[in-house]
């Protein structure tokens, strides 16, 4: 096939623009990775760009021995496991009845009105804080799980998927005398695996990335999840090195704030990278499901 001259010029221009935007997405991340593996001397002399200089693992060794990092990692793992399970159970329980037509479930409209109300109108930061405090959740793991136990957006995604399930499938089960809970678990859930995977990943990412709830609902820093701990470390620049004894200091001459923070940031995105192929696959299907079909 012959390519016209204009087309060739366009293709070159197009590749450059796309290439530039793509590189801009990866460069800051490579930069932080390079810092995390570089010696503090190289960082101070501004010799680090995208490739580690004077390669060292000392920043990672330091993070390995930093108990605060691991305490908050444990809190995060706990909230992810508990939070995602509770999210899933509750959102499936909510999505199934709401996927029924008004003829099948006459009260549906009242539930929908209620959901729409809490979706559109927010009580605001302080009232929510005091309700969480009133229910005695402050400084417990539940303060990060119960307030958002029902992710409404995910309910909508799953509800729309359930609606697309052919009714004939259900009818045969009804004839066998199955009750709605059995129909949900034996018929709907097995064929909704892609949608359930999508909403599971939504919850997983939300719980992994949440930092604000941990920050305001914890009075003691040992209750912080990883992201809240990183927030205080990186953004409010609380020094990790302040509380270090002299021996550790001497042993880690190659460590400074920059490579140490970089190492912690990088470790915290490794789990994201692991689930990233799934994210790409299911988040896209979830997006078009949720917003195009509506």
């Amino acid at each position: 096939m012959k390519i016209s001259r204009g087309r060739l010029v366009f293709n070159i221009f197009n590749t450059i623009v796309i290439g530039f935007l793509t590189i801009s997405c990866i460069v800051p991340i490579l930069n932080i990775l390079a810092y995390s593996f570089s010696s503090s001397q190289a960082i101070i002399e501004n010799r680090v760009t995208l490739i580690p200089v004077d390669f060292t693992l000392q920043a990672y060794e330091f993070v390995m021995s930093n108990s605060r990092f691991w305490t908050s990692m444990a809190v995060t793992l706990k909230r992810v496991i508990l939070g995602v399970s509770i999210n899933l159970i509750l959102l499936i329980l909510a999505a199934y009845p709401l996927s029924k037509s008004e003829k099948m479930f006459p009260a549906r409209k009242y539930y929908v009105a209620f959901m729409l109300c809490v979706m559109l109108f927010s009580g605001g930061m302080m009232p929510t804080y005091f309700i969480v405090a009133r229910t005695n959740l402050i400084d417990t793991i539940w303060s990060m799980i119960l307030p958002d136990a029902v992710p409404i957006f995910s309910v909508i995604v799953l509800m729309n998927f359930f609606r697309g399930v052919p009714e004939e499938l259900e009818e045969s089960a009804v004839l066998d005398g199955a009750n709605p809970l059995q129909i949900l678990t034996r018929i709907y859930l097995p064929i909704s695996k892609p949608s359930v995977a999508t909403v599971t990943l939504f919850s997983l990412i939300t719980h992994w990335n949440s930092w604000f709830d941990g920050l305001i609902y914890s009075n003691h820093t040992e209750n912080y999840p990883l992201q809240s701990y990183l927030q205080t470390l990186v953004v409010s620049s609380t020094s990790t090195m302040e509380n270090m004894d002299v021996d550790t200091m001497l042993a880690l001459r190659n460590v400074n704030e920059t490579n140490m923070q970089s190492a912690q940031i990088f470790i915290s995105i490794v789990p994201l990278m692991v689930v990233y192929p799934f994210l790409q696959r299911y988040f896209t299907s979830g997006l078009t499901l949720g917003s195009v079909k509506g």
Partner: protein
Amino acid sequence: MKAKKKRNMARRRDSRYYHAMLFLPVLFLFIYHFLPIPAGILMAFENFQPGKGFFESKFVGFKNFEKLLIHPDILPALRNTLIIAIEKIICNLVIPIAFALLLNEVKVKWFKRAVQTITYLPYFMSWVILAGILIKFLSPGSSASSPGFLNTLLVNMGIIDEPVYFLGSNQTFQQTIVISDVWKNFGYNTIIYLAALTGIDPTLYEASAVDGAGRWKQTIHITLPGIAPIIALTTVLAIGKVLNAGFDQIFNLYNPAVYASGDIIDTLVYRLGLINKQFSLSAAVGLLKSIVSCTLVLISYKLADKLAGYRVW
């Protein structure tokens, strides 16, 4: 007759199951998402004291709202919110659409896939992580630390004479916020337009090529009209975001030096409430914001339903 009666009985039994299934989800939503609404309204009209609670605190009428009117931080916060949010809305529409159109012209499969894989990546990271990365990346350097990657690059290339404090000066803060938000989201926002582009009937292109239409003409007359419905929908749904300038992002990137250009309603609500302990004042701002936002979202849903038959429920 008998069959109908039987069906009605089954339906009533099913309904009972449905109510039972919805009980726990509704309970949690009621406690943590519904109760804060009346609680917030109460707080806004009283001098709330945590020790006294929602019902024992002193009722003060519209005093909190009067205080707000003369509060020096409220107008700048409103102005910054509108500027940042509207700039974000426009850029988050235009750039992903343009990027989708460009990417759609790429015929090399592996390149297209690699581009998508890389550009989606920042979307999945929290603003805490991205702030940690960007604060270093954009740093102008100080007596204790060297400048970050971007300033070093720009100075070495001779584009700027000395490092720019992107996140620390009121001249650059808003643009930095808008650009970094687009940077985080454009890859992900592109997906929806790419999906719409693949939905366009390829015979339309073939027919127009026979008629002698070039690529540019095809883009104007086939591609853009083909994705116009989805563009209209995303535009309309964006109306609801006019008061959301992005709390997570700004909270993690701003500092007192840029309050003049970077303080938004949500960060003000936070500082009034959790830092200054002016709980009622904070609740009053939150209430006003909620009312306006709710109205805007309702309008956008109505429009989306009219324009595109889009329904959330």
